[in-house]
């Protein structure tokens, strides 16, 4: 026994160790994986992000070289703090805080001291930074904006955060990713493919040598260049018209569904999302909850469409056979639909048939048409669903399916909706929902939905899904769904009388004041009532000014919807702006400069201040001219670089 004790222990130990070795070396695959992760350093070779061109080939977004000032705390020697602060143009306190942060993160790995210096800011540093061991600059490719408009469409890029890295392993700390607009929607195409170089590294992460002689290395693939459907000139022009106003402009080419213009006001210069102030600027944009500059009023704002919606009711009436273009309806300053209630109307000749009904925007006319549509079926519920399906076939009441990352559904009610949300008793009739006839009530829509609806009318019964990308890398390889016709439920033959009516709006009706020589426009004004809760009390604000139109009448090139918040009459702001945009698009120049000057030199800022003033206010007042020197259109913007 006494001779065997050590013998026994040695044997036991040896067997346990061998078993452990076999367990670790033969059966633990994850250890091999971990060793790879440990030892192979992957260095990315960043491709250049794709450029963005407008429909005419004008370069809108390119790249520029920027420089991050980096620090490796371990290599920092004593230095002249003041001189460095002067070079970097930063406070001593900020600098010290950054270095402290870097030390906390890592002594050996580089950290950013100042991100994204432009070439101009970098130039004076270049030579002198050598005096400061531990500090150096690192090149980065950033966006360069050659336009000062369309920020809402183009979007911006930011460094990825941890949650994105966790979800998508193709991103690494410090990578850039599109956060909104096209940059976000077409991130995959624009970013290209990172090249990879693998190195064996040591425990400090320093590369030792190429891994397996570069067998697994790849070359970066540059991002695809995008050509978008926007017309940069139109964007630039429209944005200037939208100064001092809030609202959205959406213009679509009816033949293709291409979005010619998408403007949201208030707007901002896309360049402010770059450079050393970028965080501050982006946060300011996001935090502005009153003017909401990052809220795309062309895509996301849901408004009561107002009178432009009437043309849809006219079309449905014709399709359903409940009204003939020559049927005349009386209007006694409104329409009595039972009891003491009355849908009011302004004064005009009476009775009116369809063409003049549209031209005069007679509420009474459309209330009766709507009532006939709903009541032509066995009950109001069936009637409502028939009506609702017709309206939805114009792309209203649901997402359109365009290729931008934000949007709203709007709302086109149906019988379910009324049963569920409005009249749970089920006791509701055409007269209860009569506001739908004039685009008020439950109906809401976004400007792009209205523009698309107008395009469908311009096409006499069909539309293409609106979209923003025209070509990817010079090839028209866009999603086939944007080449598919979407038919409305209205027969083409019923469009002519309605289009005639819309033409009359422009020639002799509510928009007669915005005529452009030589262009046949078909349009419809709208003056949409709207309300806001102020201190818990629902208060009516000045009406929104709405205008939808397409032109020319017989070969439509552009369908446009303009929504000006609190602009009052449809013809006061929206129609003027729409007609200027149409002229700019069709002729390339403006002949009605008086119209242009009027729009530029009137402001709605006072309207937007009213709800926040804390005082009682009047609504629907006269237009307010801009104070100060007269403003002109600036055509030299295209020269900025």
């Amino acid at each position, binding site marked *: 026994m006494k001779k065997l004790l*050590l013998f026994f*222990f040695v044997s036991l130990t*040896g067997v346990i160790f*061998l078993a*452990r070795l076999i367990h670790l070396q033969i059966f633990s695959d994850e250890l091999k994986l971990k060793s790879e992760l440990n030892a192979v350093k992957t260095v990315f070779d960043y491709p250049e992000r794709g450029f963005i061109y407008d429909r005419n080939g004008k370069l809108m977004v390119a790249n520029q070289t920027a420089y991050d000032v980096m620090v490796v705390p371990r290599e920092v020697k004593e230095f002249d703090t003041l001189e460095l602060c002067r070079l970097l143009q930063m406070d001593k306190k900020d600098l010290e805080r950054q270095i402290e942060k870097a030390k906390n993160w890592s002594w050996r790995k580089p950290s950013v001291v100042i991100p994204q210096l432009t070439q101009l800011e970098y130039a004076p540093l270049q030579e002198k930074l050598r005096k400061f061991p531990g500090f150096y600059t690192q090149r980065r490719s950033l966006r360069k904006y050659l336009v000062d408009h369309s920020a809402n469409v183009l979007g911006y890029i930011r460094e990825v955060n941890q949650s994105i890295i966790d979800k998508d392993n193709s991103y690494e700390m410090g990578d850039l990713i599109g956060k909104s607009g096209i940059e976000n929607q077409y991130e995959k195409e624009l970013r290209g493919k990172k090249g990879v170089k693998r190195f064996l590294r040591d425990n400090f992460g320093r590369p030792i040598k190429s891994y397996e002689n570069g067998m697994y290395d790849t070359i970066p693939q540059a991002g695809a260049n995008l050509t978008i459907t926007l017309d940069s000139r139109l964007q630039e022009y429209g944005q200037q018209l939208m100064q001092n106003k809030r609202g959205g402009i959406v213009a679509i080419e009816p033949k293709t569904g291409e979005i010619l213009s998408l403007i949201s006001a208030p707007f901002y210069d896309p360049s402010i999302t770059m450079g050393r102030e970028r965080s501050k600027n982006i946060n300011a944009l996001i935090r502005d909850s009153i003017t909401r500059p990052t809220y795309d009023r062309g895509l996301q704002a849901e408004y009561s469409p107002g009178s432009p919606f009437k043309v849809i009711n006219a079309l449905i009436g014709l399709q359903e056979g409940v009204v003939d273009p020559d049927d005349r309806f009386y209007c006694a300053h409104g329409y009595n639909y039972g009891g003491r209630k009355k849908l009011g109307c302004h004064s005009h000749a009476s009775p009116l048939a369809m063409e003049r009904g549209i031209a005069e925007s007679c509420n009474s006319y459309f209330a009766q048409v709507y009532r006939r549509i709903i009541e032509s079926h066995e009950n109001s519920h069936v009637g409502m669903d028939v009506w609702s399906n017709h309206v939805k076939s114009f792309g209203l009441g649901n997402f359109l399916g365009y290729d931008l990352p934000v949007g709203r559904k709007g709302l086109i009610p149906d019988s379910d909706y009324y049963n569920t949300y409005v009249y749970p008793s089920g006791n509701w009739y055409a007269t209860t929902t009569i506001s739908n006839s004039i685009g008020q009530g439950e109906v809401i829509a976004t400007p792009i939905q209205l523009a698309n609806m107008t395009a469908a009318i311009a096409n006499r019964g069909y539309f293409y899904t609106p979209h923003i990308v025209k070509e990817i890398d010079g090839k028209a390889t866009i999603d086939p769904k944007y080449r598919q016709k979407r038919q409305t439920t209205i027969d083409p033959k019923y469009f002519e009388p309605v289009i005639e009516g819309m033409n009359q709006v422009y020639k002799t009706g509510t928009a007669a004041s915005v005529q452009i020589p030589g262009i046949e426009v078909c349009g419809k004004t709208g003056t949409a009532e709207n309300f806001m809760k102020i201190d818990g009390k629902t208060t009516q604000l000045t009406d929104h000014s709405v205008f939808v139109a397409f032109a020319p009448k017989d070969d439509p090139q552009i369908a446009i919807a303009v929504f000006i918040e609190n602009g009052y009459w449809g013809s006061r702001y929206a129609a003027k702006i729409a007609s200027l945009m149409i002229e700019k698009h069709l002729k390339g120049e403006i002949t009605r400069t008086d119209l242009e000057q009027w729009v530029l030199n009137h402001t709605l800022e006072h309207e937007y201040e009213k709800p926040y003033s804390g005082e009682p206010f009047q609504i629907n007042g006269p237009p307010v001219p801009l104070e100060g020197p007269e403003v002109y259109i600036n055509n030299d913007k295209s020269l900025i670089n």
Partner: protein
Amino acid sequence: MIDSALGDKPKFDVTIIFIYLALVLIGWMSIYSAAPVEQYTSILDFNQVYGKQFYFISLAVLLIIIILAIDVKFYERFAGVIYVVSILSLLGLFVFGKEISGARSWYGLGSMSLQPSEFAKFATALALAKYLSQLDVSIKDIRHFLVASLIVVLPAIIIVPQPDPGSALVYAAFFFAMHREGLSVWFLMLGLIGLAIFLGTVIIGPGWIIMLCAIALIIGFTLSRKRYKKRLAKKPKIWVYAIYLLACSGLALAVNPIYENVFSERHRNRIDIVLGRVEDSQGIQYNIIQSEIAIGSGGWIGKGLRKGTQTQGGFVPEQHTDFIFSAIGEEFGLLGAGSVVVLFMVLIYRLIIMAERQRNQFARIYGYCVAGIFFIHFFVNVGMVLGLLPTVGIPLPFMSYGGSGLWGFTILLFIFVKLDAHRMSYQH
């Protein structure tokens, strides 16, 4: 001093010498690979660890020649002197010691440093063998046992506060020699039971442990009663069992205060990691995890010399010293690491066989001391590198980088080789 024994033609044990050479060379190769260097230079470059190790090995060969040349009687005769010198050199550290990474365990000699605790092992082994081999000394005699224990424990007590508790732990190895000479295995059992109670208390708390002890003792008592009734054993005394229980409970209750107060944070963490009580892959657990990754990624035959990504990247701290086994595991795989384990097993088996064939009690005891010391080093070091035991900083004999260690182990082994070579003629 040249061999004087008449007609004595020394018969050196070739097996043990081959194992020694194999371990030293594999060790040196691995140090070459695991060396923390930016750029490989000549293998003889004294500025690099592998270059230094080469000179250490050369000097070890010189030491072997001297040891084998000295009269075999010298070692027994001067055992006491060597022991005293060794103890003095350990004490001298408190005055003249050079502090390296927090421990005053070295004497500085110019650019070199010597670690006397590495030499204290063979000195203690000689002293213990000399004392126990005296004709009138028996380990079973309590006074002689206490003297023998003092010989063993004295250097350990001096080493602990340097601080180098790992090196002190090695002195447990002498139990095997003492056991061979008649010390009851119960001393070991007591130690193991104490350890079990200690770890058990740390893991599940004193209450449970006391309960388990009570159950075990009640079962033991009942069994003894049965044996007594069958007239197989003496009548068990209940108060003896009560004392056992009291001792166990006392220890269990003392564990937590000891654990919290006597152990330092660092040691607690090391124990907690092996017990799986904490997870900290970047901090204290880092060494062990990296070591396991290195070994685990080796596979059957390894990645090849200087091809191990973990080893070349320097991911395992102290890899050329205490963690050298992980470099072997990565670069030579199961084949290499398994061979090293087998080599150590064969080394210790061979030493036991050699010890058993001694006619001379001094040589036998010394042989068991040598086998025990190698076993403890092998057990603690490889167990740590494989992630089975807490981190204890002791080297792997012959393989870890370091002059003092290599020389200490070489002297330890080759004194026994010398004694063994003269086993036929060497008498007291």
